[in-house]
């Protein structure tokens, strides 16, 4: 894209043919400058438009297109709060009770919330569930009557939205709807919108069409549940109460139960993950086709899994022809590898519940969970390098680059790849990032393992490892060619 300063530089070069005018241009004489600069500004703005109009026929690559796609598909920057078991030991001689909602902080300063009331008799201990989230109430006074009134949610810095309840002073509770389609007129409802700067807005409806128009001077209360997102459970040890209300509470010892993870926390989706989601041809959450299920499930759980794939009986019969039975009819199979092992049961439950909400045909008994098998993917890169490059350094560079993109537990390896990794993408990655391949005579060839003989199955998580990448480097001819670059 041509920027304004590039255009002006070029203009100055051209003006040097006319020294009198050039001198006046430099001095800023308006009779010379004004229209030239206006033209330059116009061309620069045109260049922006041209770049925007450049087609991305298949792969969305610009960050803003990806974000726009996420906004259109209603993917919100929402996090999942971590839930963990906490042991409370009462070392005092009086029974003590902590009510649900009491705040604790862990060793790293994150705020946790008791979601159960704990009654602890003296000299005993009890286990309760805590959640890494804070609840905040925000009041908002709608001063004007406006259809589709939008209120921007003011979230705390570095924390993500995890839940929201909206109510007004007349006692109406607004329910969340994903979009306005099929919402009755007059129903107390709201929907959430994200803008390109990832700010979340709460939108209310229009009594004439969908939802309810906010009346002037309605006092709204937003109860916002915020969380820090992902929590490394291996570093959870002791906790302490945020404030001590009764003297007896000072005798309580709080400790996270080891392996007591109930639900692992997850951050909102990052651009890399949104890029993957943007390649699905799905635009809403109505799951009809298999890819819709895959999209809807991935959207919700991809941040809690290293690998996640969902398939139906037709895919099952293609890949597991020997195993298929009558029981597989009308069933969905899910293979996933949770980020935290302890999260598996909760994730299974959450997944099944989510699939049921997408299509009630697939209730808990019609969704099978299948174990994930790790499968290293063999790649052979045969390269010819010009004599100036250091072979070992380039080998290491290639290996690190491939592992950073196609290594274990990365977004590029988090979904079912029936055809293995795309060699075109690999070669683009190599030419783009390895400078040794950017001269005129260096060359490389990529061979991937033959999957015709041993097809990749949906439950196989495919990735590259240090050993599965082999690199052969030979030297280009030292004599005979006089070309270095064009």
């Amino acid at each position: 894209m041509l920027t304004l300063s590039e255009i002006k530089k070029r203009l100055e070069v051209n003006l040097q043919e006319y020294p009198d005018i050039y001198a006046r241009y430099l001095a800023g004489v308006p009779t010379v400058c004004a229209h030239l600069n206006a033209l330059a500004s116009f061309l620069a703005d045109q260049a922006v438009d041209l770049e925007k109009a450049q087609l991305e026929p298949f792969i969305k690559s610009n960050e803003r297109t990806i974000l726009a796609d996420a906004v259109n598909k209603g993917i919100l920057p929402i996090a999942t709060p971590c839930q963990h078991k906490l042991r409370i030991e009462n070392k005092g001689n009086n029974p003590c009770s902590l009510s649900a909602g009491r705040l604790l902080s862990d060793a790293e300063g994150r705020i946790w919330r008791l979601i159960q009331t704990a009654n602890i008799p003296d000299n005993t201990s009890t286990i309760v569930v805590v959640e890494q989230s804070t609840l905040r109430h925000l009041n908002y006074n709608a001063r004007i009557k406006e259809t589709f009134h939008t209120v921007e949610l003011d979230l705390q810095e570095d924390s993500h939205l995890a839940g929201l309840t909206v109510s007004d002073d007349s006692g109406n509770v607004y329910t969340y709807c994903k979009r306005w389609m099929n919402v009755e007129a007059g129903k107390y409802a709201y929907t959430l919108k994200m803008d390109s700067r990832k700010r979340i807005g709460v939108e209310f409806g229009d009594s004439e069409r969908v939802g309810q128009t906010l009346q002037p001077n309605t006092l709204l209360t937003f109860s916002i549940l915020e969380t820090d997102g992902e929590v490394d459970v291996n570093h959870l040890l002791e906790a302490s109460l945020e404030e001590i209300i009764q003297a007896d509470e000072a005798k309580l010892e709080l400790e996270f139960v080891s392996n007591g993870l109930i639900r692992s926390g997850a951050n909102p989706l990052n651009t890399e993950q949104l890029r993957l989601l943007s390649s699905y041809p799905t635009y809403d959450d109505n799951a009809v086709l298999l890819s819709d299920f895959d999209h809807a499930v991935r959207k919700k759980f991809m941040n809690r899994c290293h690998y996640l794939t969902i398939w139906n009986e037709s895919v099952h019969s293609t890949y597991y022809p020997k195993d298929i039975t009558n029981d597989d009819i009308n069933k969905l199979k899910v293979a996933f590898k949770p980020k935290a092992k302890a999260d598996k049961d909760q994730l299974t439950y959450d997944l099944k519940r989510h699939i049921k909400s997408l299509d009630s045909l697939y209730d808990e008994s019609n969704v099978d969970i299948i174990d994930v098998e790790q499968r290293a993917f063999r790649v052979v890169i045969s390269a010819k390098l010009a004599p100036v490059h250091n072979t070992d350094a380039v080998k290491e560079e290639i290996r690190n680059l491939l592992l950073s993109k196609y290594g274990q537990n990365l977004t590029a390896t988090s979904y079912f790849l029936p055809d293995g990794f795309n060699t075109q993408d690999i070669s683009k990655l190599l030419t783009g990032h390895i400078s040794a391949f950017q001269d005129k005579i260096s060359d490389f060839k990529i061979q991937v393992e033959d999957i015709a003989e041993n097809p990749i199955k949906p439950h196989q998580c495919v990735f590259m490892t240090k050993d599965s990448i082999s690199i052969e480097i030979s030297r280009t001819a030292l004599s005979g060619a006089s070309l270095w670059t064009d």
Partner: protein
Amino acid sequence: MKIRLSNQEVEECLKHWLNTKAHSYYGSSYGENVNRSQFRPISENSADIFLAKLKKDLPFLNELNQDAVQIIEENIGYDKKHFFLVVGEVEILIHESTTSSTGHTFNANAF
């Protein structure tokens, strides 16, 4: 590269500036809305704002002395004033802008 602008050229520049409404060139705020000094209190002093904008738009004027660029006023009767923009030996009467695109003389069907 130093150049010397003739009086005639400086006059052309100033007239160009006075006759260009601000923001009429694409991508720049060049120009001045001369008409805004109408219907203002006759005792109001807005010359500094005017000169600051002038020096911003015509950067070569910054190389002159502080006194070389000034505005002179002349009282005509008790309810009328003339302003003159003076740069060195050049003196221009600031008058109502005639390049306005509003009013009955504007031809909406012009090509």
